[in-house]
């Protein structure tokens, strides 16, 4: 039976009776639907998902420990992608078909085309090894003590505790992985903003506002941007999911102790419960993000607000 977690846990040397015993302990000898109900019951009432075959602890608890680093990385990348992508998109739309637009276009298309691991390798080779400006791997620079655990997010924790060295250390460690991860969504956001800004510029209300003598700055940054940006926001929940997925490569490359390292290990050792836990956490995270995005969209687009009320 391929992918039998009991067999995988015991390794290739294990005897059949040992495997059978473990299968029984893990409840794998029950019919599949019974297994499913036991699983659901444990999950809903005990908050347990089942033992990880690697650590023999509850997989959900294991995963939640690995979640904070991933969250830190993904949030930083998302912020970076939005902060760089939106202004670049606006700039490109305003210089449409000028050299700056073409340059941004080439840059963004390259951004989505770079394999993450390759970006990481290049950054590490040039910035870290070559120039020695930033740490190569890890969450903190070597020798910097870990800040007191409060949220699990090093940057936040070090700020709360006023630990300046840890703060600088964790920010410096975060820069390269965050850039690697942010490059592709940033490019996507930039292209999207450019397209929807150009779309907006042909709308009737823009003509009317211009005919009313409104200043072009106000028109661009207040009136058009508001409309152009709301679809970008609806996309951002998908972007988040996308980042979570791509964080795997980045975490492996930068030895970032997040979900990916855990999941990759789990995948190699066929730790089913651990994989389920990772998937579950990501699913929940996706739902939460979706909720926030919906709220944000309601703020930006009044039509959505009313549709909800009705």
């Amino acid at each position, binding site marked *: 039976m*391929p*992918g039998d977690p009991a067999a995988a846990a015991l390794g290739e040397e294990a005897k059949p009776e040992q495997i059978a015993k473990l299968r029984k302990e893990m409840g794998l000898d029950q019919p599949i639907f019974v297994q499913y109900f036991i699983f659901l019951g444990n999950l809903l009432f005990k908050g347990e998902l089942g033992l990880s075959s690697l650590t023999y602890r509850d997989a959900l608890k294991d995963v939640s420990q690995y979640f904070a680093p991933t969250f830190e990385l993904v949030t930083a990348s998302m912020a970076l992608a939005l902060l760089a992508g939106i202004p670049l998109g606006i700039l490109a739309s305003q210089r449409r078909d000028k050299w700056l637009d073409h340059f941004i*276009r*080439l840059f963004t*298309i*390259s951004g*989505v*085309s*770079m*394999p*993450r*691991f*390759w970006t990481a*390798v*290049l950054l*590490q*080779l040039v910035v870290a*090894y070559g120039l020695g400006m930033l740490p190569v791997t890890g969450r903190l620079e070597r020798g910097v003590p870990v800040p007191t655990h409060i949220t699990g997010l090093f940057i936040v924790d070090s700020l709360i505790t006023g630990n300046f060295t840890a703060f600088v250390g964790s920010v410096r460690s975060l820069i390269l992985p965050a850039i690697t991860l942010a490059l592709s969504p940033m490019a996507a956001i930039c292209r999207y903003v450019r*397209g929807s800004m*150009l*779309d907006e510029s*042909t709308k009737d209300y823009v003509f009317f506002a211009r005919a009313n003598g409104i200043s072009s700055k106000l028109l661009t940054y207040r009136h058009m941007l508001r409309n152009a940006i709301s679809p970008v926001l609806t996309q951002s929940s*998908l972007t988040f*999911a*996308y980042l*979570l*997925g*791509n964080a*795997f*490569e980045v975490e*492996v*490359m930068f030895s970032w102790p997040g979900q990916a390292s855990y*999941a*990759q290990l*789990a*995948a*190699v050792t*066929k*730790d*089913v419960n651990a*994989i389920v836990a*990772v*998937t579950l956490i*990501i*699913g929940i995270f*996706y*739902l939460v993000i979706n909720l926030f995005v919906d709220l944000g969209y309601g703020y930006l687009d009044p039509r959505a607000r009313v549709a909800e009320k009705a």
Partner: protein
Amino acid sequence: MRSNLSPSGMKRVKAISRLDGFYGEEIRRMMYRFRRNKLSLLGLAWFVVLTFVAVFAYQLAPYPEDASTPHFYEMFKPPSLEHLLGTDEAGRDVLSRIIIGSQISVSTGLLVLLLAVTIGVPAGLASGYVGGALDAFVMRVADVIFSIPPLVLALCVTVVLTPSLEHSMIAIAFAHWPWYARIVRGEVLHVKEEGYVEAARSLGASTPYIAFMEILPNVLTPIIVRMSLDLGYAILILAALGFLGLGARPPTPEWGTIAGVGRVHLPSRWWITTFSGLAIFITVLASNLLGDGLRDALEPQVE
């Protein structure tokens, strides 16, 4: 002079007159817009070259036997005239492996897309046109798949099955079909509201007639555009899986796998990962440039 035209001549005249009109006109405009976009021509050129290289891989590779045979006495040679891109941990020529790997990367990418399209397009058509419970079902399934990043999905698949190139392809296709279902469904819902669909219905047309004769031709363009953009994405994610050791197994000369094996030897033996990554980058870039040009050519939004 008209009477002098032979029947075959008449036919030819008709054939020519058939070319103008919508498609003839559209094709001319399309070519114009596509050509205006020099970068997408570059993308197209790269794919032409790549196809050529993939077909004649064993003829073009300087050391064709290096696809599998190790030469341990030549380990980790840096790039030189003899080995343009150096050699790997088993003394194999990196350039040769990349050239031979082109067969795998391009064909698997295409296969994944084909698989995703064959599931996604009918699902989207049915869900958009029939609606109701079927629509709700398909879209909920799609939502669930959307909420799981493709890499994680691939992880799950490889845990249940064993890591291999085939399994990673299945996993990616599975993660990807909802995109097509969603695009097609959206287009169908849009087209369904068009007057000509109502007109066909009021003429007494059956559901299959409407779906295939009236709706399908109108949703093809976005699918083609999406596919050309997705080819790069599929190649990218296959490479990522290979890199993480969840796709093709070494010593398969798959680009991602080559890079993944080379990672261990960073930073001193930098050439293995760097050059295999470069091959992936250029190919994906070409696919994106091509798709971008096609989108501008087929779906002009801002004119």
